[in-house]
């Protein structure tokens, strides 16, 4: 697995660029990741990213869009506005988590 430099730190990523170590993530890194995929972080973006981070810690896997709506309380529509086209993957990427595995 490659190691790359993000915001001045050495970070482990997979071949697609998703972070592979939960604890290597911080907000400065998230900002770079977001900018890199054309997302400008607002308070609303941070709320979702922070939900994903804490949900991953307790659930052991990345929340799907469905779960972000049902458990996190962020409507699907809003997810598509904040992270256009591919919300689930973009949210996971910025949150430094693996792509969601669930089908729904």
């Amino acid at each position, binding site marked *: 697995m490659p190691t790359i430099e993000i915001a001045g730190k050495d*970070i482990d990523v997979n071949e697609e660029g998703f972070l592979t170590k939960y604890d290597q993530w911080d907000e400065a890194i998230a900002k770079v990741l977001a900018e890199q995929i054309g997302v400008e972080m607002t308070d609303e973006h941070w709320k979702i990213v922070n939900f994903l981070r804490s949900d991953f810690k307790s659930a052991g896997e990345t929340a799907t869009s469905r779960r972000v709506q049902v458990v996190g309380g962020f*409507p699907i*529509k809003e997810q598509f506005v904040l992270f256009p086209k591919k919300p689930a993957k973009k949210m996971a990427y910025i949150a430094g988590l693996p792509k969601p595995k669930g089908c729904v």
Partner: protein
Amino acid sequence: MTMTMTKPSIVPNFGSDDAPTRKMAIICSKGNLDMAYPGLILANAALGEGVELHLFFTFWGFDMITKSRMEHLQFSPAGNTALHMPGGDAHIPQALAPAMTGMATKMLKKQIADLGVPEVPDFLDQIVAAGGHLWACRMSADMNKLELADLRDDVEGIISASDFIEMTDGAQLLFI
């Protein structure tokens, strides 16, 4: 975009927000509970990948969008020899299968709910919220004597087969 921070050297390719999208149309022709799901799961996945998505409901699939029926889809083991006793490989005897619809429906609903997958009407809500389009088949509406008012409010129209063909120009098609 001006980059002021260090650029990660490996960035996932999420495509461009304004690039022309892939387009997909799924024809839902079945009204059994188990056969309602494949189309919905794929539709939802397609939308999550930024694909333009159209669902076309026809024949028995009409039950999925008919207000008075959409909450009552059923699953029957009759005619389905791939249905096994819970937790094993033993087949459910086909002679008994017709009597088991109620129980089988209840069990399937529970299994689906346990996975965090919504019921059909709720799932369609999610699909529409994600930008999916719902269409009803003209002939099925006529056969069932149903009008737009009888269908989910977010069904965009009752359209003919040729309307559908025209609308799905360039789309990938799936018949379920």
